[in-house]
């Protein structure tokens, strides 16, 4: 390096960071996705740390301070029982996010294996599984939710179950069609020729290569579950009072729409922002998970005057 001008960038090898870092970098390059990720992290942060960062109990009734507008004391105002709206939103986020996550987990736990099996094995099994999925699909999602909740009673587990069942065929179909394509790829034949069994082919190679459509679909399921939970709670079939829930609070806010608009604006805003954040991320995740989209920037190191002085 002795002959280098101190200010000349020294181009070396392109960066070969881990897959996770490359994907993350690609994701953040998309502004909408970065904003989505930021909003989502903020909501998650609120949900997780609510009791420590918001000095109000979301269920504590304080009639002396009911229907107060937004102020420094209550950032998003108070409701008709004098409860802090921000606290209720933060605790409601716990419900929304956990219902969203467990719905995704439940739907994926059944939908992904069914789709993989159906697409990879094909033939009669494919036919049987897919007709079964079609049968599930004929139920109008919300109506099935209402029916299940009506049957088993309204609580979080039931709601999750109801929403998850509806989403199983959706995931199964996406996984199946992607599997049908990947199954025929040369690298699957090549890996089989190398001595891989079906188990490894399906769960290592096929699954890895259908990740993009799967992740996108999972984000859609996630946001759909949040909306559906809010809808069920709005109808009084979801989370029961006094537990805070966005949909539930929205329903109650209707009576005070004119006098206390912050009461309905807050849950509406939280629902819209979280759903949009997840969808923006989903769109970009599809691309950023594909190694072919990764930009290897040459890592340039600039010799600092100090470093040159040291030599």
């Amino acid at each position, binding site marked *: 390096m002795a002959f280098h001008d101190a200010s000349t960038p020294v181009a070396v090898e392109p960066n070969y960071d881990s897959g996770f870092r490359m994907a993350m970098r690609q994701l953040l390059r998309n502004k909408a996705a970065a904003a989505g990720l930021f909003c989502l992290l903020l909501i998650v942060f609120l949900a997780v740390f609510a009791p420590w960062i918001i000095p109000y109990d979301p269920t504590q009734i304080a009639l002396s301070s009911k229907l107060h507008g937004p102020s420094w004391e209550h950032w998003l105002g108070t409701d008709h029982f004098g409860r802090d709206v921000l606290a209720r939103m933060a605790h409601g986020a716990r419900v929304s996010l956990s219902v969203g996550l467990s719905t995704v987990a439940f739907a994926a736990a059944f939908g992904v294996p069914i789709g993989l099996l159906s697409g990879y094995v094909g033939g009669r099994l494919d036919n049987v599984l897919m007709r079964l999925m079609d049968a599930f699909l004929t139920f109008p999602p919300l109506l099935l939710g209402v029916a299940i909740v009506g049957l088993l009673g309204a609580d979080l587990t039931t709601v999750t179950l109801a929403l998850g069942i509806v989403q199983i065929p959706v995931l199964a179909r996406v996984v199946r069609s992607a599997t049908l394509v990947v199954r025929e790829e*040369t690298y699957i034949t*090549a890996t*089989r020729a190398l*001595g891989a069994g079906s188990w490894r082919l399906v769960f290592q190679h096929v699954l890895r290569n259908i*990740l993009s459509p799967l992740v996108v679909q999972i984000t859609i399921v996630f946001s759909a579950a949040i909306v559906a939970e809010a809808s069920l709670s709005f109808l009084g079939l979801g989370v029961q009072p006094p537990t805070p829930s966005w949909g539930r609070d929205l329903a109650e806010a209707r009576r005070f729409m004119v006098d206390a608009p912050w009461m309905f604006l807050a849950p509406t805003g939280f629902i819209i922002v979280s759903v949009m954040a997840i969808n923006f991320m989903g769109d970009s995740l599809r691309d950023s998970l594909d190694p*072919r989209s990764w930009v290897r920037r040459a890592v340039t190191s600039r010799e600092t005057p100090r470093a040159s002085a040291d030599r």
Partner: protein
Amino acid sequence: MTQVVLLSAEGLTVSFPGRARPFAKPDVVRAVDGVDITIKRGQTLGLVGESGCGKSTTGYALLRLNKGTGRVMFDGVDLMLLPPEKLRSMRRRIQIIFQDAAASLDPRMTIGDLIAEALDLHKLHTGGSRQPRVRELLELVGIPQRFAERYPHELSGGQAQRIAICRALAVEPDLIICDEAVSALDVSIQAQILNLLQDLQQRLGLSFLFISHDLSVVRHISHEVAVMYLGKIVEQAPTSLLFENPRHPYTKALLSAVPVPDPDVEKARERIVLAGDLPNPANPPSGCRFRTRCPVAQSKCAETLPTLHEIEQRHSAACLFV
């Protein structure tokens, strides 16, 4: 010198369902029809023929990547009779490399992981010796170490084929089936890959089944050559014998299509141009399958199916007139 037979296939047949018609049995396409081939240890058998004649299907059938019938004896074991578990471990000994090498590598795995997977599948070099072994294998095919972190789409065609070869070598096979392995590469890279293959053959004692439509490549690399037409072997001989003294009219026609790099010879030589296309394999001609395009065909060719018979030592052909 005595040569040990590594693989011998007898009556290898691969059928595919053809077009289905209403109220009739679906057609059966015999892509490979009763092929016998023998591959000797440390040697290369070239398999040539037009597109669609069943060369690649033959290669796949040897590996049981499609549903073939017949006998495939590999080192004393009939591959066709192996249960799935045994077949998988046997696949370690027979590897295949493809024409589109880049497509044969999982696009979401790094080169290093792809090679490590090959080792992992057969529990080779487990633990601490794995990474050194991956480096050693990369070196064997002339790929720099730093490529281990890259993904398949970041490779050139030649590099991708080297990686495919590397992955095949990782499991220490006896036989590598090269399915049009250099056809997609440009000429200078072809030469590099061919030299690499020959070098590896000498160093590791590998056998190759070299499937190609490129006669000059096959001539360069093979010890023996089999010529295929519409699912059948029509002529088979040691390379020099076949190229200097082709007997089957199809082989003659194939060879006459290759230009000679000497203007005088090129001008003087006689070219046999075949008329028409390959017949539909779902409905092959009666008798000799080549008769529809054969310059010497006579009426009896439509009635009698010629069998592959020895016409001189180690040289056999399937034609009624030789």
